[in-house]
């Protein structure tokens, strides 16, 4: 049996939320008593900057990982991917309630994570799902067993030719990597609040509409022309406009108040709380006009001109009537027809 342990990381809620804090404490207390786990607590995952000890710790975890946070699992998983903590998506039985009628029939085919995916699983559990520690503890045990079985299976299926080497003492069993050692105080150093989009690459089709729409230079492309959140600190606090224009709902703001933007399973309306924005002075708009209003507001706040629908929405405008074909079009058609 493999000696590798399951690493469990609990990401705290931002702010002082008595109910959330107390759940965090009881889950942590239960987990620490559980054998075979490495348990750590970090501040809100979303706020961990590149140099934060909590983030370095997460990056140092090479084996299976289970993360509890106050985010939808989809948001937490892709947030980790963005932070340099990639893996295969593990499926927890504790997940947002799914309504058969609402489930999406054909999810888009995304371009996938840009990172090399190591052979380990990452499970993300939303702490808003259950209100006491017991169900979480039971699920941690189930996941720990699942990971153990998977590792044992992988070891059994290793080529037999490798066996003599083991006898020679070279040891093909992967060496258990040491987890980086940080004190709980280092891990829990309070980060500043941050605000930026997180891309779900399992849905992102690289259409680049977000790149066209955002006028603050948040998005860019990598060497392979894949979209990425390049300058996250350019992002305007509270503004989720790009998420609204994304045709595949692949852009999440994990801490936005409406579930659809915060990374709830696509196609479901998980009405966790009533939205009083209309009573408090907000107006209801469709997604694109809302996105335009949000973007204009941020442009004006930056001392720039509002652009309304003029910029970055080309693909959403009604198709213009096809102009008469000119000679060049004919040439292209003829070339296409040759089937070269």
């Amino acid at each position, binding site marked *: 049996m493999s000696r590798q342990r399951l690493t469990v990381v609990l990401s705290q809620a931002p702010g002082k939320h008595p*109910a959330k804090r107390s759940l965090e404490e009881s889950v942590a207390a239960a987990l620490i008593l559980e054998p075979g786990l490495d348990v750590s607590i970090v501040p809100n995952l979303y706020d961990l900057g590149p140099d934060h000890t909590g983030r370095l710790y997460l990056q140092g975890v090479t084996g299976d990982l289970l993360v509890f946070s106050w985010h939808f699992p989809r948001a937490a998983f892709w947030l980790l991917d963005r932070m340099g903590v990639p893996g295969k998506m593990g499926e927890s039985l504790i997940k947002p309630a799914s309504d058969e009628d609402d489930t999406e029939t054909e999810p888009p085919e995304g371009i996938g994570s840009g990172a090399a995916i190591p052979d380990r699983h990452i499970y993300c559990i939303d702490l808003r799902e259950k209100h006491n520690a017991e169900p979480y503890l039971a699920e941690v045990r189930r996941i720990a067993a699942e990971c153990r079985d998977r590792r044992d299976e992988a070891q059994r299926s290793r080529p037999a030719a490798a066996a003599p080497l083991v006898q020679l003492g070279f040891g093909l069993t992967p060496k258990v990597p040491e987890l980086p050692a940080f004190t709980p105080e280092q891990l829990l150093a309070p980060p500043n609040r941050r605000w930026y989009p997180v891309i779900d690459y399992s849905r992102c089709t690289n259409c680049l509409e977000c790149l066209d729409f955002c006028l603050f230079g948040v998005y860019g492309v990598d060497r392979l022309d894949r979209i990425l959140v390049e300058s996250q600190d350019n992002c305007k606090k509270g503004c989720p406009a790009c998420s609204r224009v994304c045709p595949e709902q692949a852009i999440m703001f994990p801490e936005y108040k409406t579930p659809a933007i915060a990374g709830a399973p696509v196609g479901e309306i998980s009405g966790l709380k009533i939205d009083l924005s209309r009573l408090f002075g907000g107006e209801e708009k469709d997604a694109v006009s809302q996105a335009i209003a949000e973007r204009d507001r941020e442009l004006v706040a930056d001392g720039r001109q509002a652009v309304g629908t003029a910029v970055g929405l080309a693909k959403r405008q009604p198709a213009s009537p096809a102009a008469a074909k000119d000679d060049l079009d004919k040439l292209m058609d003829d070339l296409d027809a040759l089937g070269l």
Partner: protein
Amino acid sequence: MADPLIFDMGKYEARLPTELRYCRNHMWCRPEADGVSRFGFSTYALRLMQDVYFLDWCVSEGASVAYKQQIGNIETSKAVSDLFSPIAGTITSVNSEALKDPSIINVSAYENGWLFTMTGETLGTMTASEYVEYLNTNWEQTQRILKGQMHE
């Protein structure tokens, strides 16, 4: 000081001090010296939201804001909401105590639980009795909005 007016919300009575002015977005407004006014949530708003868990402003002190511009958001035991500026003007200060521990908003809605101060014209605000009338007129529709959302 005159007795506060009461707006009846089912079993709950929202207490509305008469020396304050009220805004359509359910904030109270207390004009102070030098054209600065202090704002906070009316107990009507707090009854709808209940315990405030998390409060965040997306504008800083010194920011000029338009009427109805989004300035922050809030999460409570019952609701989430964007928060909008009650008037046009400049935010002069925000209550940092309420940011650190938002429960103060529930404990002391009209005093220590204030939200922010800002300069700007407050002519569009209402007296307590005008606010009660406004609430009465909108109470049925408000209930419809609330119930509608619960059934979505």
